[in-house]
């Protein structure tokens, strides 16, 4: 039985072209901080006061939001300050070194240090936004169309997490095939676990169609959303659950693969009480 229950998932789609006229990076992050804050509040809306007091921490992850920080255009500490000023449960930790698998490595880090005895809640947000409106991020040969947005997942940790979470790195340079093989091996012997995989264009999906032909998978939504980086498996679970509201508990294996071969998988439970939020696409006004 997985010790990770999804209590809420929110997705805020962002337009590929965010601006009429590109503002300063400070203004962009001010706007994004507001969206992250609103989404955090939405995801937490069904928690009782007592449960809110058990929120341990909130990670913000990303794959492609690196240039503002790397070049010194803005410092994470400035963004974190804005987020803190907006509310108590906003993210204060930024993890992007593991690319699309950053959410899984954040979860691993949290579980390494967290105290096992107390019931606790953890928030992980994933932000990918084309802040400089660069052509490369809209479309490229690796995954074709990108999809942008903010995901927030509220996880309840109900016991000791052991084999629910896998963080690993490919050993070969055919990381897609290796990822599919590890996914297959991981779900073998686990009953009724549905796979929520990253979204890829059709020619890459073929790899999953062939290597995971016998596994139960959610449909690839690349044609609807593009490749949304680390958000894909969560968006996949969200869309499926909105279309087919869970009548009973359902187990999913959320899995992400990074371009450099890092991968993360988490077996999670979704049930009738999971709060599901899909917002309208937003752009900077």
């Amino acid at each position: 039985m997985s010790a990770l229950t999804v209590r809420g998932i929110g997705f805020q789609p962002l337009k590929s072209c965010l601006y009429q006229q590109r503002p300063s990076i400070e203004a962009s992050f001010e706007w994004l901080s507001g969206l992250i804050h609103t989404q955090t509040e939405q995801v937490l809306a069904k928690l009782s006061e007592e449960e809110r007091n058990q929120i341990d921490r909130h990670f913000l992850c990303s794959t492609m939001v690196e240039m503002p920080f790397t070049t010194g255009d803005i410092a994470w500490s400035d963004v974190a300050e804005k987020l803190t000023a907006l509310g108590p449960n906003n993210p204060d930790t930024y993890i992007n070194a593991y690319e699309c698998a950053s959410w899984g490595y954040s979860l691993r880090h949290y579980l390494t240090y967290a105290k096992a005895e107390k019931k606790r809640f953890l928030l992980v947000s994933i932000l990918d936004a084309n802040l400089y409106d660069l052509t490369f991020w809209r479309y490229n040969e690796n995954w074709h169309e990108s999809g942008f947005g903010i995901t927030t997942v509220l996880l309840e940790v109900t016991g000791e997490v052991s084999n629910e979470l896998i963080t690993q790195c490919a050993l070969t340079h055919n990381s897609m095939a290796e990822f599919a093989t590890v996914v297959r091996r991981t779900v073998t012997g686990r009953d009724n676990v549905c796979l929520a995989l990253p979204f890829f264009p059709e020619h890459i999906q073929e790899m999953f169609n062939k290597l995971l032909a016998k596994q139960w998978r959610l449909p690839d939504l690349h044609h609807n959303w593009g490749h949304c980086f680390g958000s894909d498996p969560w968006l996949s679970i969200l869309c499926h659950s909105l279309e087919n509201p869970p009548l009973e508990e359902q187990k999913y294996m959320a899995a992400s693969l990074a371009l450099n071969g890092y991968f993360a998988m988490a077996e999670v439970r979704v049930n009738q009480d999971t709060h599901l939020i899909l917002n309208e696409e937003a752009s900077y006004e």
Partner: protein
Amino acid sequence: MNRLHFKGELKRVPFEGKLSAALARYMPLESENDFEVFALLPSSKAPIYLNFAEHYQILERFVKQANACFEGEVNFLIRLSMPGGMRLPAVLLEPNVLLMQDIQPEVLRLKEGVSKGDVSRLLVIDDHLLRYQLEQGENQMHLSLYSQSQFDVSREEACFAQLIESLAEFGIAAKEECDNAI
């Protein structure tokens, strides 16, 4: 809590006399906006002495050596800018390592863990070694070791000194020494 600090700076190419591949890649620029963005981004004036592979080689050796010296009882926080350029060595992806763009908030958390007895030893690598011109920094590498007071100080110091010595082989020397040399 034991605390040890070192402020180092890379002053030369780390692998002297060896060929170094040009591994840094530039994002393809297409639209007018792409060029405009890159023309306005801040860029560093500090020299570039290493590529991604060499950088990871230094970090990999450092982490392996520290793991051996402290018999695996050590957690690492390493500052690392993205994009990563290439796949990271496996040892940097282990559970006792966390890689972050801005390590300061986590340093505070884990230092508190050391003083409370939840974390036995924390080694912070505040690394600003530049791999390409858009990264910010001055090629500095600062180290901090925090360990529980139950550990013998002289042994902590000996391990820390060994680690610093190994960095010197790559041209990372104490900042003061470098300044004196000039």
